[in-house]
């Protein structure tokens, strides 16, 4: 991994289409600005990873699906009928 030191208001260019700027520093938080073409998807890594992980778990389920109505608490299923 390339590691660069930057001050607030300084930037890094990746190729000629992506610019990453350091906007603000507060305590242990860094505010980063990203300029990129629309087809470059920018996500917070933990969100991306969480969805990927959830998809993996969802894909491992068996094929015996529950019947939603049967699992519902008594009151609700009565309301439905």
């Amino acid at each position, binding site marked *: 991994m390339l590691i660069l030191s930057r001050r607030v208001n300084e930037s890094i260019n990746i190729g000629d289409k992506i610019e990453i700027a350091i906007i603000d520093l507060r305590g242990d938080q860094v505010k980063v600005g990203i300029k990129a073409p*629309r087809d470059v998807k920018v*996500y917070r890594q933990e*969100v*991306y990873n*969480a*969805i*990927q*992980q*959830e*998809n*993996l*778990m*969802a*894909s491992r*389920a*068996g*094929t015996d*699906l*529950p*019947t*939603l109505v049967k*699992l*519902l*608490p008594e*009151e*609700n299923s009565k309301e439905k009928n």
Partner: protein
Amino acid sequence: MTIQTKAYGTIEIDDRQQLFFPFGILGFEHLKHYALLDAAQQPFYWLQSLEVRELAFVLINPAIFRPDFEVKVIDEELGEIGLKSMEDANALTFAIVTIPENQSKMTANLQGPIIINKETKQGRQFINSDSCWKTKHYILQELADLRHEAC
């Protein structure tokens, strides 16, 4: 056409049930061809891979347990599956369901909803930019909870 499915073995489907996911599904980016099947158990659907028989996701319409659910994505991203906005009449919204051993603890992923353009048969998993929607929403709990707080 005849397809191989995880839940129902070899079955015949209508060509109109075929979907193309140009970006795949997160973690399964290389698989782009799916079919949308009604599950035998309502209100679920199967999103069955047409490339890997053992890969299938259970889907649900989130409106069933969260009528207040909203997908917030930028219109340019929707454009990649031929939709102008979420108000487009061709936009169908689904959530992937995770079913653990204790089925009453099943959850729906509302942070990564699946949007399908029913006209062009394209689909995509989006990342909901509204951070109040999580990867695990307990379907039965939220369904039973009549007083759930507005998001």
